[in-house]
């Protein structure tokens, strides 16, 4: 079984995972919007978030590009290791305190270094002959009384063929999808942990809720028998509709934990906790979500501050998720708003760029900047590259604002960067990317 990757034609495993799991997505906790806690994409992270103690030391095993970066909102000391050096670098850029490229069987940390060792979607990628060594290594770096938490992909032998039963072609296809070379049934995974930890608890997940993307993938790639018309319906959803679906699914996923509902086996996924000490509640053991909402509050009388990472700033749905361009910036559609509070605003500054095709003097992009409905500027953009903008704010706007401001940017045209992307099905309209939105309130 050791050469499953080789049999699947994957020569460079680290490169395989880099291309699969590193994107330009920003996972940095400073860019987190509280409403995202309901998104199915963050549902597993939220389970870990609610089970670690604020201020503790956490190791993310197989951190990818920074799956658990949100934990920084809880003030933890967050370290990460990954097989891929690029993944480790991406995680560091996303706010991890320390990252390293390492073999999971030989973690580069002294004994008893962490209060928690966590992983999401990792152990299904560890081959069978390495699993026990990885779990033992986790035990080594855990402090006494420390807890290891895992979200683990599973299999259901009643539904899926085992690796031995697959033909070479089936095996190749199966592993090429996600790199799963170590899928086991829930009980088998739990048994492995029981050999190392005296206290193990686990619960299945995914029996009720999956993201739209996962429904389609499990149906198309893994052959799970979801209803055809339902899958077709999901396939036809727009990006925003899928986001709404995923938010609802994430909400249900979270409620399963909140209400301590024991789901039936799904054969897809499980959460597992293990420790050398008796375990506390399986869900929400250290639930404290204040950090998700507050962030680092700025000084009330700060002369200038940046809205990009400001906890009090509210970016509406006209903005897309922050991307690494570089720098980190937010793309917007035809119209986007950000609201914030400030005693007074004398000037607004921001950096702005676009990748809109066919941009030029003959076909410029018309932009309009408004603050509380008052137009600060209107201009045409006809070249690529970053544009540094500064808008003085009229006094009458300040007088009428009452400390509440809403910056609005309007664009007269947009484009779909990935209209033919069948896999991503990203039909979002984009106009400009904006960053470094600085509010200056100097007298």
């Amino acid at each position, binding site marked *: 079984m050791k050469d499953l990757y080789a049999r699947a034609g994957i020569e460079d495993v680290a490169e395989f995972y880099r291309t699969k799991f590193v994107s330009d997505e920003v996972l940095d906790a400073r860019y987190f919007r509280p409403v995202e806690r309901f998104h199915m994409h963050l549902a597993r992270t939220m389970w870990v978030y609610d089970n670690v103690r604020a201020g503790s030391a956490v190791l993310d095993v197989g951190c990818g590009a920074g799956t658990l970066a949100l934990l920084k909102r809880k003030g933890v000391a967050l370290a990460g290791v990954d097989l891929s050096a690029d993944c480790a670098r991406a995680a560091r850029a996303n706010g991890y305190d320390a990252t390293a490229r390492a073999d999971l069987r030989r973690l580069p940390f002294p004994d008893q270094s962490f209060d928690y060792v966590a992983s999401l979607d990792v152990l299904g990628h560890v081959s069978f002959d390495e699993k026990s060594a990885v779990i033992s290594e986790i035990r080594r770096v855990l402090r006494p009384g420390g807890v290891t938490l895992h979200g683990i992909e599973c299999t259901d032998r009643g539904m899926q063929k085992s690796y031995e039963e697959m033909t070479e072609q089936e095996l190749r296809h199966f592993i090429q999808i996600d790199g799963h070379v170590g899928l086991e049934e829930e009980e088998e995974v739990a048994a492995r942990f029981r050999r190392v930890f005296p206290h193990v608890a686990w619960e299945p997940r995914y029996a009720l809720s999956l993201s739209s993307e996962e429904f389609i993938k499990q149906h198309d790639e893994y052959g799970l028998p979801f209803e055809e018309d339902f899958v077709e319906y999901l396939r036809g959803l727009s990006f925003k509709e899928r986001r709404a679906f995923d938010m609802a699914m994430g909400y249900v996923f979270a409620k399963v934990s909140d209400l301590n509902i024991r789901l039936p086996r799904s054969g897809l996924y499980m959460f597992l906790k293990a420790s050398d000490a008796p375990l506390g509640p399986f869900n929400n053991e250290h639930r404290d979500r204040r950090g998700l909402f507050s962030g*680092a509050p*700025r*000084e009330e009388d*700060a002369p*200038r*501050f*940046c809205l*990009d*990472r400001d906890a009090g700033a509210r970016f509406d749905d006209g903005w897309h998720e922050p991307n690494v*361009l*570089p*720098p*980190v910036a937010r793309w917007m559609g035809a119209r986007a708003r950000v609201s914030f509070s400030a005693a007074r605003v004398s000037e607004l500054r921001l*950096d702005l760029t676009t990748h809109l095709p066919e941009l030029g003097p003959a076909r410029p992009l018309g932009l309009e900047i408004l603050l509380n409905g008052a137009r600060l500027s209107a201009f045409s953009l006809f070249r*690529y*590259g*970053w544009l*540094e903008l500064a808008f003085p704010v009229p006094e009458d706007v300040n007088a009428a604002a009452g400390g509440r401001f809403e910056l609005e940017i309007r664009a007269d045209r947009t484009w779909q960067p990935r209209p033919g992307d069948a896999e991503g099905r990203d039909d979002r309209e984009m106009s400009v990317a904006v*960053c*470094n939105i*600085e509010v200056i309130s100097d007298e």
Partner: protein
Amino acid sequence: MVDLEVEKTLREIRERVRAEAAAGGEEPAQAPTRGAELSTLDAATGAAGVSSALGRLEVNVSTAERARSRLPPLVSNRKGWPARLELWVKRQIKRATHWFTWEQVNYNAAVYHALRDTHAALAALDSELASLRRQLHTFEEQLDARDARLSEELAAGVASLRGEQRAFVDDIHREQRALASDLRREQGALTDGLRGDINGGRVEARERAAHVLEEQRVLFRQLSLEASERAVACERSRRDLETRLAEIKKDVMSDK
């Protein structure tokens, strides 16, 4: 009359025997000792020899035909009745020895027939040989003609190949000159293109550098803003820490 005939016959026999003896004495000296030499004999000489031999054989066969049943005549040198008596006695003796002489006559007849058949066979062979010689001669003539024709064709082919070779060499030289000319032209165009590309590349590099500088400016600004935020956070943490330390100190003091 009879004596004349006998005398003539004896002379012929004597001459034939002498001729045969002379031929038999000369043959071993003239006969070729090797087969290869036989094949080199002049055909005409061979043919003439065979013809004269066949002519002599024919004469001998006609002599044998004429004299095959003839025995010596009964003659007497006496006269009168002694002569008659002697002839009578000889006739009786002739009759009495007929059984013996008859065999000689039969033998002579057989020899005659054998010689005649041999002569006929040899004549046929000679005729066939002459025919073969003629055919051979014709064939040799044809071969000679063909040989001459092939030689002419070969000479013509060689001349043609030499001509083609010269034309090919001329073509190669012409193509070489054209290729060299094309290469020089292309090299010139490439050089011009490269100069253009280099100039274009310089412009593009300048544009990219400007873009990178812009990006760098935005990144530095982002870093600067993040650093300010961290500085504010650090300051706040420091103040919180000092406050907590002050509270702890106050608690400790009050406990004391």
